[in-house]
């Protein structure tokens, strides 16, 4: 059965309500998209489930992430309620039936809660075990991290680009003039093109850092998503590269892949040795050269602290800046007196806290300004 989009048909209501539910589920569906969806359904036929599915996907979605939400909602909306199209209760009631938002409320409510948490959160990242979290909590955490903005640090490159001010670009000016058969014209200018610096994040996953490891990997995921050149390693009793795992867009999948790759979760720390392995195998060969290196660790060192100091010093000579993020630093009365921390301190460009989301935000600022 088909219908006209102008007709006050049950089908129109059903599809409009679906589009609105999709909007509530987080896909940016505007009025004109809904209209476009209805028109598309008219063309493809409202009785055909596959046709409605593809029409909606083409008109209401605009990224692969939208498609995931759309798929879930589509089957919740159309499969549980018999054949298509069928008149049902008022749209407003049906919207609340969609089990996509956290049970504690959809839309504004969740937003409010989010704002409250961000405002008061100091210790929000502690003792969060991903495995033990409910889907609602996970979404909440994901939403918190989605607020983090990471801009890559930049360096001046040798290449130049056309720019409205800067030195005169003689070649382009002349070539333009040639195209005009010698008639003079405006001067063309050029300036150096800024390029993103590489950022290297070394996450300590030893036992003492366990409560923060998940949050730090999430931070790594945020960086990987927002910056063009990021390398993430985990450091414990051995060095593991997790960059590849974190490149997955879906944060949960990325974290699972990263955890699977790391063999030494919650083990001991041989920070100095592992740092040496990093500098030897990766850093010196180019990964750390000119990069901003962030070490996220509490500085508890089981081995010789002198070794750690030496390696941090090497790293600092190689890289553009070394930033140490210590989750304990944000606590009242903290002094960097642990052997490892004290040894590393003289060689750091910045020493920041890392116990809350706000601290993560500040770290990202420090990194992008480095």
């Amino acid at each position, binding site marked *: 059965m088909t219908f006209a989009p102008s007709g006050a048909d049950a089908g129109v209501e059903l599809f409009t309500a679906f589009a609105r539910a999709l909007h509530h589920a987080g896909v940016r569906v505007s009025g004109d998209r809904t209209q476009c969806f209805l028109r598309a359904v008219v*063309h*493809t036929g409202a009785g055909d489930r596959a046709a409605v599915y593809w029409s909606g996907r083409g008109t209401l*979605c605009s990224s692969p992430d939208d498609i995931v939400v759309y798929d879930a909602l589509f089957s919740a909306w159309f499969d549980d309620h018999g054949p298509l199209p069928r008149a049902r209760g008022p749209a407003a009631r049906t919207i609340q039936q969609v089990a996509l938002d956290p049970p504690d409320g959809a839309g504004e409510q969740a937003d409010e809660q989010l704002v409250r948490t961000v405002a008061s959160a100091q210790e929000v990242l502690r003792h969060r075990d991903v495995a033990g979290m409910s889907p609602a909590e996970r979404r909440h955490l994901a939403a918190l991290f989605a607020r983090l903005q990471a801009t890559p640090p930049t360096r001046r490159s040798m290449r130049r680009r056309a720019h409205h001010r800067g030195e005169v670009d003689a070649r382009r000016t002349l070539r333009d003039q040639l195209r005009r058969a010698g008639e003079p014209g405006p001067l063309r200018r050029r300036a150096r093109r800024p390029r993103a610096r590489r950022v290297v994040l070394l996450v300590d996953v030893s036992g003492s850092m366990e409560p923060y490891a998940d949050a730090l990997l999430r931070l790594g995921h945020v960086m990987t998503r927002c910056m063009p050149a990021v390398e993430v390693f985990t450091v414990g009793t051995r060095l593991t590269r997790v960059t590849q795992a974190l490149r997955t867009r879906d944060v949960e999948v990325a974290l699972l892949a990263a955890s699977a790759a790391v063999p030494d979760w919650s083990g001991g720390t041989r920070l100095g040795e592992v740092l040496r392995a990093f500098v030897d195998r990766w850093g010196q060969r180019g990964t750390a050269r000119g990069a901003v290196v962030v070490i996220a660790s509490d500085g508890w060192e089981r081995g010789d602290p002198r070794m750690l100091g030496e390696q941090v010093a090497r790293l600092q000579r190689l890289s553009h800046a070394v930033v140490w993020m210590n989750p304990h630093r944000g606590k009242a009365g903290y002094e960097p007196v642990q052997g490892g921390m004290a040894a590393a301190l003289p060689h750091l460009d910045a020493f920041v806290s890392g116990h809350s989301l706000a601290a993560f935000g500040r770290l990202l600022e420090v990194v992008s300004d480095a």
Partner: protein
Amino acid sequence: MSAPAGLAEQQGLGSAADVTRRLRETGYLADAGLATITYLALVMQRPLLLEGEPGTGKTALAEALAELVGVPLIRLQCYEGIDATQALYDWDFTGQILHLRTVEAVGGTTDAEALEESLYDDRFLLDRPILRALRTSPAVLLVDEIDRADDEFEAFLLEVLSTHQVTIPEYGVVSAVVPPIVVLTSNRTRELHDALKRRCLYHWIEHPGLTREIEIVRSRLPEISQRLAEQVTTAVQRIRHDDDMLKPPGIAETLDWARALQALGRDELDLETAGATLGAVLKYREDTDRVRDSLERMLAG
């Protein structure tokens, strides 16, 4: 509804199934989703925005569409820094100057206004892809890799796509008699602006399943054996689904590989040949190393 009968009706395309069938005739195998979206783009006269991994057949769809409808394909390859003079139109300044000098030399007209008018004539107007698409209507306009262009270019494209016309100050308004079929492709190296996406129908092209990909290889390269097609496709699919690949191979790579083996005169994929021709599929050294180690497993079965 819109006044001019769409190209879809002229072509007798009444449903998505028709589109699938006609695309198949051109050698492009579309799944139900892509066919539906393409059909909608034709009947609703909306631009079609295709996103997906490189090598999934985004550009090929535009080529197939042009062949299906029987109109020219006009391609605009985007790149960083592309601007209106490269996408839309430009004046042939050298030509204009020469024209002036010639008029001067022969001691021609004294009517300044007429002379000026003769400068902004059709013959000095260099039409770039978008203007050409509007003037040659009907046509298929392919805006390839829009994610490479800058934001400003997107805004400008938006204007053209919504009105199907271009205003040239010295010349007048150029509008398409029949709006062109517009296909935009993006590799998603950056997010496009929402305003542009809203005007388009969106489709994310997935890599095809095994059977479909074998079918694609067979239809594109009818001269290779069924067995080779199956072997190559199975191997590529295994490589593609290995999560650690820096750059998973697309259909284009599958076809390249099959062609390479054909050029070597093989009708079976053995370990040695596969190792030697791996460069057709994998373009990163890390990937090649990884696959070479497990090549035996990849080729098994």
